[in-house]
């Protein structure tokens, strides 16, 4: 495909939509990893669960699309807190290997479970009519759904930015990410803070999963295939950094889209190559510490 203005705009637009999806799912993972140092490889499974839950809500229970996104945010967020209190909390002092193994085990169980109930093939949902079709943007049109995703992303970014930079809770989170022991010694209940951020982060992942159905497709293998991308975003952005996750999601999302547009066969390369290049230069990520 040749590189004309139209192609560039398509790449930027689609890349932006993809980046929003990556950001929404990854931000929770980045903050919880930065806060507790806990490697959660089941995060992709939370996103997948969100997707399947939206599927069931819209298809079998007749819940409209937008409310179902909110519902999965709340439900998966709440369920994740149960997991956190019963399972994850026991491994906070454990080695990284233990955390990797526990969460891989959970991911396997989730994938197997969803395959059993929904089958291994990719699923799709019917979007409400106002989200289908194209929007006229002057000189060209843009798919409405992707505009919607970008809009959701922008709203969430603004909301999260506000929470992080302007509220008490946000300040506490930033302090605890920066130096957990010091934060504890000035009276911040880091454990409770972690449970809260974990719940919200997992809820956001589920929401992202719901959005992803009509963007990249949904199947049980989603949990592991996209986990790699979420890990790339978190590693490249830097653990615990809101800004880092956003920048990384934009870079990786746009480069991946560009690669797939311009080099159909080899397109999958780009995201890994870029991520590795950045990590080799800055192992702690773009906005990571030490």
């Amino acid at each position, binding site marked *: 495909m040749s590189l004309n203005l139209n192609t560039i705009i398509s790449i930027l637009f689609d890349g932006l939509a993809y980046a929003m999806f990556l950001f929404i799912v990854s931000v929770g993972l980045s903050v919880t990893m930065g806060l507790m140092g806990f490697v959660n490889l089941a995060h992709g499974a939370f996103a997948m669960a969100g997707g399947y839950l939206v599927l069931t809500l819209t298809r079998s229970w007749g819940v409209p699309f937008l409310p179902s996104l909110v519902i999965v945010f709340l439900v998966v967020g709440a369920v994740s807190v149960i997991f956190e209190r019963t399972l994850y909390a026991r491994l906070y002092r454990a080695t990284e290997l233990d955390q*990797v*193994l*526990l969460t*891989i085990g959970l991911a396997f*169980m989730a994938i197997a*479970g969803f395959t*059993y109930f929904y089958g291994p093939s990719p699923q799709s949902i019917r979007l409400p009519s106002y989200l289908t079709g194209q929007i006229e943007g002057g000189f060209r049109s843009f798919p409405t759904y992707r505009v919607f995703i970008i809009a959701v992303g922008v709203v969430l970014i603004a909301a999260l930015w506000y929470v992080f930079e302007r509220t008490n809770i946000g300040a506490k989170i930033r302090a605890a990410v920066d130096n957990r022991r010091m934060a504890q010694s000035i009276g911040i209940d880091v454990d409770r803070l972690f449970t809260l951020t974990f719940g919200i982060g997992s809820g956001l992942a589920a929401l992202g999963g719901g959005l992803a159905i009509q963007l990249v497709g949904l199947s049980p293998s989603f949990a592991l295939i996209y986990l790699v991308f979420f890990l790339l975003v978190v*590693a490249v952005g830097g653990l615990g950094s809101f800004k880092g996750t956003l920048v990384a999601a934009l870079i990786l999302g746009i480069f991946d889209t560009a690669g797939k547009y311009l080099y159909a066969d*080899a397109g999958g390369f780009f995201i890994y190559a870029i991520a590795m290049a950045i*990590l080799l230069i800055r192992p702690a990520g773009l906005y990571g510490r030490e």
Partner: protein
Amino acid sequence: MAVSDASLAPAHARAVTWLTTRHHWRWAEALPWLIAIAAYFVFPDRMTFGSQVLIMVLFALSLDLILGYAGIVTLGQAAFFGLGAYTVGLLSARLGYGEPISGLFAAAAVAAVAGFLSGLVLLRYRGLALLVLTLSTTILLQEVGNLFKDFTGGYDGIPGITIWPLFGVFDYDLYGHTNYIYCGVVLFVLFYVVRRIVYSPFGEALAGIRENVNRMHAIGSPVRWRLVIVYTIAAAISGVSGALFTQTNAYATLGVFDFDRSAGVMIILILGGTGRLYGAFAGGVIYMLLEDYLSKASPEFWQFGIGFVLVLVVLFARRGLFGLVEDFGGRLRKPKP
């Protein structure tokens, strides 16, 4: 301040004895090999499966060197397995070369070079960065393989692999007897090598790196070089296990690079116990038996089952089967007056 043998205090004598006899073969070590030999006679119709068990044990052994002994957590060991598998496969399918033993050496060499180069670069990193980098390298290899699918056969696999008879004499029977013995011998040889490394001063240094890498720097140890060397050796052994895989299956696809394989071999070590040489044996047998049994019901059943077992082991039997045995043995020994 030399102390002569004759005047060694009892404490000295005990210490010297312990360190100088530590590496001697113990009777119990014959057990896994006897079991492997017995399996040949007791289950003659399951020898194809038996070969795959031996191959996974070898693969797990190579990972134990870096994970159990040096303490490095990576998610990319399948890269070397895959490189070994494809070296043998492509030698046969593209160059018509199917001699098995030299194929093993070729696979080991290719994997070792890859291990050395990637180790030089990647072993500077730890934690999430290392996990992500090793995982990405493996996926990239898979993507490269797919890119050149005319040459590699892509996800459909390498077409037309023929492995020549061993030593030009032993042909491969339908029941896989030759293959089983072949894999068993290779496993024994490489196990012997790994065992010597583990009990050597170098192996002691690996344990030091695992226990306290800061201290190792402070005693002047060239930590990164030690890690690169053990990583290269482990890569070579992984490559051999991949080569055996292709040789025994006469088939290989890009699935050899799958995350499932890297995760699976790690699970084997956790099941059996890391850093214990024989953990790979115990874990490998358990894992393969579970997979064989559970996936007969359905692949989801297997995936759920192994995930569940993994969670249980991490929570309750962290040091694996050998850890449980040690704990049990400790409890038996306790009630002494």
